[in-house]
């Protein structure tokens, strides 16, 4: 019996991802026959590329705070499929008034939970500009949960000055039985040779386990990407179940082309 809710949640996540894919697909500016979408489907990717991405950030709210840091490796296999490995460290504080998302222990709180999340899976390029990550893994440290995660992202209206990005991320924790999801819609505000800025909004919603009624938060976000350094920063603020919140995220991206250009 216990496995039935888990199965249901898994189906819900998969269902939401499929819905997100469908929305992105129909929103694509070019509707093409299937045979034109995946030319050379089984051929090795050319060039083969290894991406290494460092990321980090913090989340602070009136009720809890979290800091995360990690790296991700992505290796191309075919033009449409890649393998992904991700390691993330989390520090979670529970208390109140975490004004600084990068230093939530300012108010003498100690990290309530420290754990690392090890994930692996595949990256699927569903359409140019549209990707889906399917990941599974588990936690080590103060958490030992098994987790599944799906991350979907799609760029729409790419041949305009202000393309839109729709992203949807969902994960389920099999220890506390909480399903979390995050939805964001961003627009390219400006693009120069060196910078790219985005404006948008989004939020997160979670429910499950001890959280009997859905909680979440949302608000506007602002991002800037420095092309030359492959470095991006994103800030978001807003209000939700945990009160007012602020979130800061950053990434640093490295590409290693291995072989077979052109």
């Amino acid at each position, binding site marked *: 019996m216990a496995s039935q809710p888990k199965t249901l949640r898994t189906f819900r996540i998969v269902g939401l991802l499929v819905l997100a894919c469908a929305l992105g697909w129909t929103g694509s500016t070019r509707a093409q026959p299937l045979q034109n979408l995946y030319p050379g489907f089984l051929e090795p*990717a050319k060039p083969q590329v290894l991406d290494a991405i460092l990321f980090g950030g913090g989340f602070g709210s009136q009720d809890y705070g979290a800091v995360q840091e990690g790296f991700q490796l992505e290796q191309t296999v075919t033009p449409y499929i890649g393998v992904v490995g991700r390691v993330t460290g989390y520090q979670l504080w529970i208390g109140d008034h975490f004004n600084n998302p990068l230093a939530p222990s300012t108010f003498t709180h100690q990290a309530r939970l420290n754990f690392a999340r090890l994930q692996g899976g595949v990256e699927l390029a569903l359409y140019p*500009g549209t990707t889906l990550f399917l990941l599974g893994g588990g936690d080590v440290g103060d958490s030992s949960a098994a987790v599944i995660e799906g991350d979907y992202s799609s760029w729409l209206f790419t041949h305009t000055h202000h393309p839109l990005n729709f992203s949807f991320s969902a994960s389920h924790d099999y220890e506390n039985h909480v399903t*979390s999801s995050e939805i964001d819609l961003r627009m390219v505000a400006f*693009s120069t040779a060196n910078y790219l800025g985005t404006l948008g909004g989004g939020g997160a919603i979670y429910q499950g386990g001890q959280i009997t009624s859905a909680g979440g938060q949302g608000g506007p976000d602002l991002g800037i990407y420095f092309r030359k350094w492959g470095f*991006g920063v994103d800030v978001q603020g807003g209000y939700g179940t945990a009160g007012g919140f602020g979130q800061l995220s950053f990434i640093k991206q490295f590409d290693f082309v291995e072989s077979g250009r052109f």
Partner: protein
Amino acid sequence: MALFSLTICFKPSIARAQQIVGSVTELSGSAQIQRAAATIVVVQGISIELHDRLVTSVNSSAVVVLSSGTTLTLGEHTNLTFDQTVTTSGTGRTMLNLVEGGLRSIVPVLLGTQGFEIHTPNATTAVRGTDFDTTYIEGRVRPGYSGCQRYTDVRVREGIVAVANLTNPTQAVEIDAGYETTVPCELPPLNAGPLGIAGAAGPGEAGGGRSGGGGSSAAGGAAAAAVGFSAPPPGSGTSAPPPPAPPMPPLSPVTGP
């Protein structure tokens, strides 16, 4: 015999009469110059003459500075001919023919009668003082282009570049700095989109496939648009930045502080 003598005496004078249009200032890997029937191995500092064909090998690149002050950076596996160029004091236009591969062009502000054009087998780009990349890729199919196998990608860093298909030169699309476009087969250029998002490839990048064009950061800025964890662009390398786990609620609210 007299004719033979005339020939061997005349040849050097023909060579001397050739117009030097620039020189190779940097070389990584190997490259060749095809000059008439001769093939010359490129070394740093070698002069480029009008109508030369410069070909870079795999994993090679070369920088050419033209007499007009324009700097060209050729990516690997690039085939470029110098059809017409101006000298420092000259007027007229510089016309290059990109047969294969990609190059970055940094063009100084030109005089009133000067122009700078790059032709590929299916497109033409015309600029006046700018910094931009041109890449021509043939024999590869990209998703969503109905089997087309010829693409010219143009990325603009500075200035404005007018891009048109050779089949209809009057239907040009102007690309501003920070934007890019693609000319597929005989179709008109696509409308401009932000660098790294609209799917164009840069020099040294294959294009197509999962990113729809953009490859690595070889052209500088190809990894654009990774704003936010979950906003991967099609052109940012071949993949997306990692979305983080969404902000988590307390793992066990019942036993909170």
